[in-house]
């Protein structure tokens, strides 16, 4: 019973990471480093909650979250793609704006509750012990995140537009010479990443906890960024990474609950320390094996240069 509880909560903790990281993976594959995931996520959480509060529908709430994330991503795109501004500094601006605006929106909703996202209930199957709640009793976001990963994998490796997107990320000058609209492809990738981050935020305020608190993303957007590095920009490895991090978060909570006598602040610092360790380990081994990062990652593209 405890194991079942843990597995279910690990899935719940991993889903927002997976959703946000999946979007960022596509963005980075197109050669754009959008570090504003944290800001887009918290915007998605605030707007998703507001949407669900007024419409009383999880689906419409999630759509509001996606729209909010994409809107912030569009601002990022305007600067980094349109004006070729430094991508690191721009993301900071957008993170601060995202946190600020979400605070403004969320201020009206503190303490309010909504109906949490419904869970799947298949007659018979969902009632099975363990398997039922783990496989057939999740909410739509969880299934959505798995489908999203499979779709991204199929798109990147099995379709022509996916090939073009990777070409743009690896060598934008060549892609441009071949006549592909580099900036338009990057714009779409950034918007997609923003939408995914918004959805991840909406998951937090609609399903993970059915209320909104300021700063509720608590650095998950940054961890999602590290996960993309961890996964070597490959969709399936992303799943492994996200679930590993979800597991660390949950075990940390359970260890606190069990009163193991370890200071809670140290336990709470674990996901962040783990991120640093993973980054160091991955970057260290990659250095020897040669980089797998998209070659044009983070390089602004100005045509005719």
């Amino acid at each position, binding site marked *: 019973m405890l194991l079942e509880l843990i597995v279910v909560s690990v899935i719940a903790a991993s889903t927002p990471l997976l959703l946000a990281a999946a979007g960022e993976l596509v963005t980075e594959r197109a050669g754009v480093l959008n570090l504003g995931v944290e800001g887009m996520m918290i915007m998605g959480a605030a707007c998703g909650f507001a949407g669900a509060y007024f419409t009383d529908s999880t689906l419409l709430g999630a759509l509001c979250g996606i729209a909010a994330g994409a809107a912030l991503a569009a*601002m990022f795109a305007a600067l980094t793609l349109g004006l070729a501004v430094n991508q690191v500094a721009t993301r*900071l*601006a957008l993170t601060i*704006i995202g946190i*600020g605006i979400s605070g*403004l929106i969320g201020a009206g909703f503190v303490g309010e509750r909504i109906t949490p996202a419904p869970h799947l209930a298949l007659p018979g199957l969902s009632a099975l012990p363990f398997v039922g709640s783990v496989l057939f009793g999740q909410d739509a976001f969880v299934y959505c995140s798995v489908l999203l990963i499979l779709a991204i994998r199929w798109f990147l490796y099995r379709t022509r537009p996916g090939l073009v997107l990777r070409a743009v990320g690896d060598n934008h000058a060549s892609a441009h010479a071949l006549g592909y609209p580099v900036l338009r492809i990057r714009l779409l990738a950034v918007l997609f990443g923003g939408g995914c981050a918004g959805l991840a935020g909406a998951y937090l305020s609609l399903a993970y906890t059915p209320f909104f608190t300021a700063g509720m993303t608590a650095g998950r957007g*940054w961890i999602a960024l590290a996960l993309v590095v961890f996964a070597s920009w490959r969709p399936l490895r992303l799943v492994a990474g996200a679930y590993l991090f979800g597991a660390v978060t949950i075990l940390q909570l359970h260890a606190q609950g069990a009163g193991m006598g370890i200071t809670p602040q140290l336990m709470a610092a674990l996901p962040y320390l783990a991120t640093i360790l993973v980054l160091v380990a991955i970057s*260290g081994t990659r250095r020897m094996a040669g980089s797998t990062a998209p070659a044009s990652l983070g390089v602004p593209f100005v045509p*005719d240069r």
Partner: protein
Amino acid sequence: MLVLERRTERSMVAMVVSPLIAITLTLVTMAILFALLGKNPFSALAVYFLDPLLDSYGLQEIVVKATPLVLIAVGLSLCYLANVWNIGAEGQFLIGAVCGSWLAVTTHGTEAGAWVLPAMLVLGALGGALYAMIPALCRVRFGASEILTSLMLVYVADLLLDYLARGPWRDPKGYNFPTTAEFDAVATVPLLIEGSRVHIGALFALAAVAIVWLVLSRTIKGFEIRLVGAAPRAARFAGFDSSKMVIFTFAVSGALAGLAGIIEVAGPVGHLQPNFSPGYGFTAIIVAFLGRLNPIGILISGLFLALTFIGGEQAQISMKLPLDLTRVFQGLLLFYVLACDSLVLYRFKWSSRSASRAA
């Protein structure tokens, strides 16, 4: 269609005009936001940006709040000039405060003399620099992105501070509030003028501005920093080591952030408590960019952003405007500053589509 064309020379007019355009655009956007929140935009803007300038308390408070911002931002400007991305100044700021406070807590209530404060400042700077070495070494030794590692360490520093203030360092006579005891007089930063709020930390900030200005404009080290950032290949041929540059810029910016942290705690705050920083380390990044990564510019932009902190507080009290507006304002400002930066680097040109194809 409208295309960007790289300028061969930096336009001086654009350098000066672009921050002014950015500020104007921010003010216009803020006015719209105020109107959306149902407030009179003009009186709201006046509360934000004029009222603090009209009384002596507001002016002093601007100097007090600009002190940490300028100290941190001057250090960060060295990093960003060298294309090194220290985003975790907030963490180095907190660790500096923690390291310096250790001495204040240990010597509390003893006969320790006037050496305590100078030693605290040294410890603060040292702590900040050492904490900054973690992302720097991870980058140099393992190639891990310093953006993410320095940022993760902000959360870790925050939790460490929380642990110390609630646990081992908590004032036993403090009615269970999560704070250390008030620092002794020998562990407190003295005031510049008796009876005011301005303390000698402001002098440290001015000194940092002057030193960094001298280094950047008059020394070979300053040239090296700018060359490594602007033309890494040329810098390699010139024999400049980019790894050493990462370590150097992180150490300097970490030390300045740590110094700012202990000055803040031993000065205006007076004790160590969780959440004592309103995010100075993050705001300082905006200060650095708004000041065009130039020490004098940073001094001016630091004072300006300090104004927004105080204006935000006053607007919250007198107009019931949420404090998050200050964040939105600061974010918008950075957003517009970066957008207007393109005016400096590029020039806009109309060109027909066929012409750009042929080129």
